[in-house]
């Protein structure tokens, strides 16, 4: 999903505070974004993340996919992924 070495280049605190080591920029992630971002760092596949979102947040797959794609696009735009 990304060419970046997220384990080394990014720090995410349990509170959702994200620091990008390479740019010095910081971001605030909501609970769902933290969940998705952690899974991406663990290199979990997109479809599996979506299934886990369904279980974790008790939502349907369409909504889970929307949330995942929205986060992914925003994170790409900001250069986090």
């Amino acid at each position, binding site marked *: 999903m990304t060419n970046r070495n997220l384990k080394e280049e990014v*720090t995410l605190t349990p509170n959702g505070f994200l620091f990008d*080591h*390479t*740019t*010095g920029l910081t971001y605030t992630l909501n609970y769902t974004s933290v969940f998705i971002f952690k899974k991406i760092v663990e290199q979990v596949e997109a479809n599996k993340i979506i299934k886990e979102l369904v279980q974790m947040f008790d939502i349907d797959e369409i909504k889970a996919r929307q949330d995942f794609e929205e986060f992914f696009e925003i994170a790409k735009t900001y250069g986090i992924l």
Partner: protein
Amino acid sequence: MNLNIAITGLNATDNPAPGIPVARCLREANWKGKIIGLAYDAFDTGIYDKEILDEVYLIPYPNEGEIAILDRLKQISHKTKIDIFIPTLDSELFNANRIANELKNFGIHTFLPSEEQIKMRSKSLLSEFCMKHNIPVPKTQIVNDIRQLQNAVAQLKLPIVVKGVFYEAYVCHSLEEAIIYFGKINIKWGLPIIVQEFLNGEEYDVACVGDGFGNLVGKVPMRKLRLTDKGKAWAGITIYDKVLDQISEHIISALKWRGPCELEFLKEQKSGKYVLIEINPRFPSWIYLSAGVNVNLPFANVKLAVGEKIKKMSSAKAGFTFVRHAIDLVCPMNYIESLTIKGELIFKK
């Protein structure tokens, strides 16, 4: 270390000099020798901080020439031994270089870039140096009159950045604006004036110490978070980016830089590439951050000055922030009296 260090650049107003942060770095290294402040004026702000400095002496301004500063340093040395002299202002470096050998004979060590290195990184020659060594740099023109300025504006396209050869830079959106700043900078800093293409992006700085053989001994990369109205860093955060590291290593290697410097980069928004804007031939005023992240560059510079061989320092940890903050120092009348009448102020014997 039990050495006495004399440091200049102690005025810390809205454009703070690096002297006090350099002294603070040495204090962090549990300094056992004296830290001696060399000031130009009785109201240089940092000289009243007795927690940082042991003694303070007034010295002649750089425009009085190298002999004046040499004589004064010798005079001070008769009162209190100086082992190492650290000039921290650009304007002091040529004088310091010219007297470095004589100071060494007198037992005072320095660790500075050579006159040639300082000239090579000067704003008027930096572009040429970068082109030669394949270092990305903004398109630059050196101008000496209004006609050349008009040509530069036509070639570089607006907006442009008009810079003084020593200090000051202004973004200009019209030729008229560029002419105004050309005149303003010329009066203050003289010719030539540097005209550069304007690049949009974030500013990143790297504080470095080179060993003079092409090796980068230690570095602290930082992204500016807040700027003063003069464009000086007021808050910043350490970062780690391999690309920035590699460019920094390349620059220090190409220059065979000796001593401290600050590399100023712009990460261009459009391309995401780092472009070298300036090389300052001295520690930056935010150098205390280096002690805060255990890459104490002033301490490394002192070790190099006394001939110690030091290993390459580890990378600074990313995510450490500095925020500059002003405090008031209160001092009795006799401090100012001592500096004004005797040209010295002794806090600790």
